[in-house]
């Protein structure tokens, strides 16, 4: 099977020759290449070259989480500003740290009303210039520069038969607002003005769907990365999830999968409590990607046979563990979560920049060396 065929077999829960492996590699490749960080602004081509070299140094794998160095096309509308961006070596932060965000309130309570009355995209045209200090033209020009690299790199991976699994980006409605208001403030908003927040969340959905369909068409990559984190049972009770968060996710997933776009659900933090809801999403078109905090073995019990499961070799294990420990955990993933297919081996969220090379390679090699079990 080609890597692309293998990835799609996993998504469609069909038999494959082995489980695919798609590590989430970004800053790690930069560090391996001796760069301080993958800075999307100052060293774009060096970053792309570092990622390509790292792919080969690792012996190759089946999919790239994104082409180029960042998300394509309208990502500025799909990702609320997270406050101040702090690069390694900046403001006293040591060089060995990755890019971080000093989360700040960038959206007012009144902005909820603008979203409700105008929708998300129209709000962004006023909001992003206000927060960034850039004009819309400057933002579009910046984004076009990123898109050029994305398209060139996507063509490179396509020519090598490697699946790129993000042609568009959506940060979930609740996480977008949580980033813009900060997590504590958004939580207080939900408590103090629930109807207003709910109306804003609902008003965001049509534009999010439109953005995904437009971006996947333009990128030629029928995948959307949906970044989920702050709606999980680690943060909110299920009553809140049912009322505010899950309905918006379901509307987006239903709409885009109906148009043939697969959904990569990137589920950081603990989603164990929320797993049963995910069975309401379309079968064979979604990948649930866990970061090592959700109980992935419970996920197999609940979601196995309904959607593909991806993950979840922990950052701590990749940084501090031994090759034997990585092998032991990966083998357990292959044997239990990988039983009967529908599994993609991956790092739990991004491979940390200080991960040991041999540990990451052991994770990648694990699926190449071990057959996956099939029930009789």
């Amino acid at each position, binding site marked *: 099977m080609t890597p692309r065929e293998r990835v799609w077999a996993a998504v469609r829960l069909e038999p494959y020759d082995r489980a695919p492996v798609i590590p989430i590699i970004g800053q790690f490749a930069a560090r391996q290449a001796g760069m301080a960080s993958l800075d999307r602004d100052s060293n774009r081509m060096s970053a792309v070259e570092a990622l390509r070299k790292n792919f080969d140094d690792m012996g190759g794998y089946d999919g790239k989480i994104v082409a180029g160095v960042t998300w394509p096309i309208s990502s500025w509308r799909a990702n609320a500003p997270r406050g101040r961006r*702090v690069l390694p070596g900046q*403001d*006293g*932060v*040591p060089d*060995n*740290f*990755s890019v*971080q965000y*000093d*989360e700040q309130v960038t959206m007012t309570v009144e902005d909820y009303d603008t979203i409700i009355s105008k929708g998300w995209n129209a709000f962004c045209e006023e909001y992003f210039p206000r927060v960034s200090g850039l004009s819309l033209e400057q933002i579009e020009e910046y984004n076009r520069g990123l898109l050029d690299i994305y398209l060139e790199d996507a063509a490179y991976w396509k020519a090598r038969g490697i699946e790129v699994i993000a042609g568009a980006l959506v940060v979930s409605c609740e996480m977008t607002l949580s980033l813009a208001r900060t*997590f*504590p403030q958004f*939580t*207080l908003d*939900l*408590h*103090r003005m629930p109807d207003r927040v709910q109306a804003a969340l609902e008003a965001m959905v049509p534009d999010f769907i439109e953005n995904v369909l437009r971006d996947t068409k333009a990128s030629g990559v029928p995948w959307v990365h949906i970044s989920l984190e702050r709606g999980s*049972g*680690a*943060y*909110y*009770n299920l009553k*809140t999830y049912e009322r505010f968060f899950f309905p918006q996710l379901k509307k987006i997933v239903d709409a885009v999968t109906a148009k043939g776009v697969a959904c990569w659900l990137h589920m950081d*933090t603990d989603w164990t409590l929320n797993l049963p809801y995910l069975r309401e999403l379309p079968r064979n078109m979604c990948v649930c990607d866990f970061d*090592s*905090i959700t109980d992935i073995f419970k996920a197999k019990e609940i979601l196995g046979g309904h959607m593909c499961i991806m993950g979840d070799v*922990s*950052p*701590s*294990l990749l*940084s*501090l*563990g031994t090759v034997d420990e990585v092998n032991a955990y990966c083998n357990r993933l292959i044997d239990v979560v990988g039983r009967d297919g529908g599994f993609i081996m991956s790092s739990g969220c991004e491979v*940390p*920049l*200080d*991960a040991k090379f041999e540990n990451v390679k052991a994770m990648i090699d694990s699926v190449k060396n071990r057959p996956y079990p099939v029930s009789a």
Partner: protein
Amino acid sequence: MSEIPTALAELNEQEVARLVRERLDAGDDPMAILNDCRRGMDIVGERYKAGDYFLSELIVSGEIFKDSMKLIEPHLKTDANASATRVVLGTVKGDIHNIGKDIVAVLLKGAGFEVHDLGIDVKPATFVDKLKETGAPILGMSGLLTPSFDSMKETIEAVKEAGLRDKVKIVIGGGVVTELVLRHTGADAFTDDGLEGVEICRRFVQEVK
């Protein structure tokens, strides 16, 4: 029983503020009012442990507690923390994530600890200086990124070099902190849960007595 613990446990912001003001105006002992707020926080903690409350309820209750403290503190004749156990807290060198650390700070205050929150990106020497200055028997360090593990380790080395290690219990916390990280750093305990962090500090208090 006072109505304040119940109102706080039910996350009724306006009712707690009304009751606190009413009792202050009536001349009630402000320390007794503060202790009622702490009892409310204890109920929130019990509900969290039972799985009825989540992180969001800890945040809302913490906000109510902070607002109540603002009303009560000007009326206190003595330091509310006069007999409290001191905890030095901070996010370690290089890491600027503050959400988890801030939640733990509020929960510790609600549990009656005197918290010296050094903020984010705290250098080892700064932790050591504050431990010396306060005589705190507990150090809490937070970090979300894997390079933070080395910052935690470095800080613990600095605590050792300062001759404080046998006087200070150390807990580390963060989303990806595990047993492996505990072993790597040499801390006494680890957690990825704010309320468990408070329980660990309570256990430390018993151990250092």
